[in-house]
Every structure is written in structure tokens, then in C-alpha cells.
């Protein structure tokens, strides 16, 4: 009978993440969306696809997103809420991050209407549910059927037209009718260009693009809401920092890192052993065993993060070699491909070029620049459909 082995310290966790004999196991229940997607691949198959997709996820691209593209997307998405003076942050965060994730994934919105965006948002929420089915409190078989149905509808309404447009552009490029600059730089285009090399199938492309959409939007949207909640709590106790939140983006970034450390997108990493593994610490894992990486324990280890490791403190200093967000983005070849995009680069004396604060920091900074605060007429509600610590609604007030 396979055993379940739980790892709770950073050294064991890092070694497990880097072991070629331990493969991804977090999404076994979410195959309806996650089968054959990048994070679920292993070994050479993972390396081949990751090498190609990594070309889209480098710092020069992120610099363009953060400093040129994203400020416009933020303004277009959030300004209407500032004008209304109120917002529900869970919805707003997903709407905002979806607008960027759609560009990264390569999902067109041909009509450009709010109704079309709302439909894409609704599809994405199904995909998020699919990816996190392991933690669902609902009837799993019923939800898999419902999510599969939505995936097919999304494919027909959004993916096929997006694919047709890209195929047409690639044909024009091959014919010398357009320049490379006129071809989108997104995941869907990359998959179409490398379709045969990567041994893809239509259903794999479908799930990979759906995954990029949900991963790009959901993790960042969740961090956006949680960081605002954490900062509101912090400045209630430390009112002198309220001004700093509005004026110092790197301080906001520290708040994001601290929030992500305390609230990893998934509270556990999961690996399945393909062969026996013995970690340097002596922990032995037999073939077939399940390895649970307890990210909450790893990220609140007092030996690394201090005696009050479980508390939010943006002034926290961490030892050299330890990320301020712990192992929330995993480690090794499966480290989150969008990590630098979401939370930026940890500032260092050797840093070259613009500092990347990350899209979550930029969005949180915007909210505090518009005096985000609790709505006294409505309270935030936890999401009871999942064991993950999500909000289902988080009402706030904003100023212009």
C-alpha cells in the first residue's frame, strides 16, 4: 500500500521539487482541465514544451507588460469602479487579471463587448474549479461533467476563432505577406507554430490555453485580494505606513511577497514517486508513494522566517537564498512560469534595467492610490465551495 509522506522543511521540499523521480500529482483530480498541460508533464516531454513556452515568459516581455501594456489595462478595467466609488474585489481582480491573461494565452475577444468579456470570465471560473477539484466540497463527478461541457462551449466560441486568426496570420507570414511583428506573441501562437515538434493534439491545445488563462488570472487575482486584505489589516495597526503604501511600490511588493508566503496558491505541493528516492535528510520515499509538500509549514518555518513567522510583516528580512515568498511558486523545473510576471523580481544590488515589481504589486498599488477601504455596509464572505482559503466576495469603497 503506497504511503503518504509529508515534507515540512525547505531543504526537503526543494530536493523533492527537483527530483526527477517525483512527478506532479497535484492535479490528478482535475484532469478535465489539467490533463497533458505543462505543469502536469514530466521529464523530457516537460522540458521540450517548457523550453518553447519559456521564450514568452522572460523578463524583457514582463518589463513590457508591467511598464507599457498593463497600466493601460488597469486604467481601462478599474477606472469605472473608481468612478462608481465601490467594487467587489474578487470579481474585479479576476476581471483585471483575465484581461491580461487573455493576451498572454492568446484568447481573442472578437466583439470587444462587456458581455463577451463576462462570458469569458464565466468560462474561466469553470476552469478554475476544474483545476482545483482536489479541494472541492461539491459532487466531483457532477462538476467534471459540467466543466467539460463549458470547456467545449468555450472552445467553439473563443478558441476556434482565435486559432483560425493565428493560422491565417502564420500562413501570411510564410507567404511573405506580413512581418513577424504582426504575429501575436502568445501561448496559442507558440503552440500552433510548434504543433508537430511538440506532438500536440487539438484537445491538448485546448486544455493548455485554458490552463494558461486560469493560471494567469486566478493566482494573481487571488493574491490581489489577499494582499489588499492584509495591507488593510496592517495599516489599521500601523497607520504610519498608510502613506508609504501609496508612494513606495517596492514596499507594496514586499506586502505582496509576504501575502503570497502566508497564502500559497495551493497550500500543498503534491508529487508521486516513480522510483525510490532518499532525500539528503534521510527521508525515504518508495516507488508509488505520495509526497505532500506542506507549503504552509515550509513557508512559516521559524528557523527561516523568525519567531512570528505566521504573522504578516512587510518588514520581514529573510536569510540569503530564501525567497521572501517561500516556496509558494514551487522550485525546480516546474517553478511557476509566471512567477516574475505576477510578483516581480526580488530587489538586489546587482539588478539591471527597470525593477520589476510584478503585476499584482502594480494592481494593489493602484487600489491604494484610489484609497481602497472596507465597505462598512457589506462584509467580506469566505468561499464555502472549496477547502482552499478563498473569498467569495470582498466589497470595498474606492475614490477617484
Amino acid at each position, binding site marked *: 500500500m503506497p504511503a503518504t509522506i509529508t515534507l515540512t522543511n525547505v531543504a526537503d521540499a526543494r530536493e523533492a521539487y527537483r527530483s526527477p523521480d517525483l512527478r506532479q500529482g497535484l492535479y490528478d483530480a482535475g484532469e478535465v482541465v489539467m490533463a497533458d498541460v505543462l505543469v502536469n508533464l514530466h521529464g523530457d516531454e516537460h522540458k521540450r514544451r517548457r523550453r518553447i513556452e*519559456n521564450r514568452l515568459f522572460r523578463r524583457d516581455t514582463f518589463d513590457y507588460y508591467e511598464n507599457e501594456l498593463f497600466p493601460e489595462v488597469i486604467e481601462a478595467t478599474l477606472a469605472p469602479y473608481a468612478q462608481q466609488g465601490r467594487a467587489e474585489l474578487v470579481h474585479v481582480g479576476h476581471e483585471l487579471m483575465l484581461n491580461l491573461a487573455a493576451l498572454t494565452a492568446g484568447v481573442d475577444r472578437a466583439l470587444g463587448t462587456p458581455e463577451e468579456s463576462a462570458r469569458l470570465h464565466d468560462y474561466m471560473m469553470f476552469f478554475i474549479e476544474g483545476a482545483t477539484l482536489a479541494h472541492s466540497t461539491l459532487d466531483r463527478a457532477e462538476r467534471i461533467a459540467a466543466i467539460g461541457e463549458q470547456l467545449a462551449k468555450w472552445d467553439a466560441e473563443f478558441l476556434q476563432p482565435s486559432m483560425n486568426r493565428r493560422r491565417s496570420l502564420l500562413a501570411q507570414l510564410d507567404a511573405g505577406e506580413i512581418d513577424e511583428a504582426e504575429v501575436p506573441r502568445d501561448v496559442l501562437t507558440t503552440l500552433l507554430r510548434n504543433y508537430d515538434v511538440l506532438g500536440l493534439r487539438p484537445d491538448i491545445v485546448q486544455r493548455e490555453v485554458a490552463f494558461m488563462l486560469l493560471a494567469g488570472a486566478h493566482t494573481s487575482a487571488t493574491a490581489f485580494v489577499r494582499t489588499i486584505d492584509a495591507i488593510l489589516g496592517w495599516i489599521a495597526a500601523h497607520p504610519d505606513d498608510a502613506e508609504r503604501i501609496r508612494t513606495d511600490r517596492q514596499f507594496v511588493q514586499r506586502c505582496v511577497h509576504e501575502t503570497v508566503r502566508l497564502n500559497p496558491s495551493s497550500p500543498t505541493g503534491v508529487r508521486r514517486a516513480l522510483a525510490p528516492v532518499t532525500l539528503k535528510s534521510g527521508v525515504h520515499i518508495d516507488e508509488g508513494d505520495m509526497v505532500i509538500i506542506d507549503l504552509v509549514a515550509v513557508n512559516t518555518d521559524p528557523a527561516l522566517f523568525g519567531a512570528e513567522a505566521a504573522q504578516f510583516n512587510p518588514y520581514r528580512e529573510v536569510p540569503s537564498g530564501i525567497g521572501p515568498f517561500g516556496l509558494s511558486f514551487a522550485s525546480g*523545473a516546474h517553478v511557476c512560469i509566471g512567477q516574475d510576471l505576477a510578483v516581480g523580481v526580488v530587489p538586489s544590488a546587482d539588478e539591471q534595467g527597470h525593477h520589476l515589481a510584478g503585476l499584482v504589486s502594480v494592481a494593489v498599488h493602484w487600489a491604494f492610490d484610489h484609497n481602497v477601504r472596507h465597505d462598512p455596509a457589506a462584509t467580506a464572505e469566505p468561499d464555502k465551495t472549496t477547502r482552499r482559503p478563498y473569498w467569495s466576495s470582498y466589497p470595498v469603497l474606492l475614490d477617484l
Partner: protein
Amino acid sequence: MTYRVELDKDVCISSGKCVADAPHFFRFDADELSEVVADPPELPDTQLEAIARGCPSGAITLFAGDTPVSID
């Protein structure tokens, strides 16, 4: 002490983090895999350790003389 740097292209997943961190020391080859430039500049050991640690695939190994340096 200045470390010697070896980069295993078979392991590299083309994240480009080393090239972004030290563009005068690392570059992409024709397959967009990272490599050390010919005649690289000297970098502080602490910076090289951070770059090696930041490589997601563990493709970068540092050597002090002939001895691999642990970056865990």
C-alpha cells in the same frame, strides 16, 4: 575566490533568468539555451551563487577549483 561556472545545456529549460540577471556573462545560443559567453567578466561570488540558485532547472554548477560548490 572566483568561481568557475559550468552550464549544462541538456538540463537548461531556457527560462532566461541567468541572461536577465547577468547579460554580459550569459547569453542565448541559436537554440535559445543559455551559455556562458566567451571570456566572461568577473562577477562577485555572491552574485554567481544567487544566479545559480535562481536557475529553475539547476543547470548551473559553480566550482571552487575542481570542487562543486553547494548552493542549497
